């Protein structure tokens, strides 16, 4: 999983059927990196979130193991309320 900050949303009409009805968020994930994740938690711009990958992401949409037909490789698994430590170069977390 990675932590990231929601910076926006993707709108698309032409998309794979498996993505229909899913909200796609743009998430800044450290440095210059931006990832796209499915959001079921109604995360807002500016909020810090945790993004799961792979089968972990599918489990966010539907509990496994019979979820391999889902089209999802990244999903917001929680919205961070707070945490201890400062991260970055300023200390541990």
């Amino acid at each position, binding site marked *: 999983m990675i932590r990231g900050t929601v910076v926006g949303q993707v709108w698309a009409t032409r*998309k794979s059927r498996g993505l229909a009805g899913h909200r796609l968020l743009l998430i800044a*994930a*450290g440095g210059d990196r931006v990832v796209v994740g499915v959001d079921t938690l109604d995360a807002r*711009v500016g909020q810090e979130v945790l993004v799961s990958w792979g089968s972990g992401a599918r489990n966010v949409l539907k509990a496994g193991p019979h979820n391999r037909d889902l089209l999802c*490789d990244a999903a917001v698994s929680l919205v961070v309320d707070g945490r201890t430590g400062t991260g970055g170069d300023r200390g541990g977390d």
Partner: protein
Amino acid sequence: MFVGRVVGNVWATVKWPEVRGLKLLTVQPYHLADLSAESGAGAPSCHDLVVCADVLGAGVGEDVVVAYGHAARVGLEEELGPTEKPSIPVDAAVVAIVDTLDVDRDALARGAIDVTQHDRRR
């Protein structure tokens, strides 16, 4: 998944039979700086490009969402039909063609959205 701009096509004569007929694109991923700039993606840098399969009909210059791994194959089999699905040797595919990237560029540029709060690579 990531979002990027289609910058070119790839074609090949010798390839795995399951890939035959699949269109291959090169996509340049967007970085944070590209999102905050009005102009979108900058000049493509070759070390950054991703090759992905496309069944949605994306063209050069369009913005797309690309999925990796199993999700990419699920995206392809939805379009190609169940008979062609099981063993496509593909790990990246276009799953959406972007209409709009809804980003508050001003807020990003002036730092109103704190994207550094988790700035520690793992």
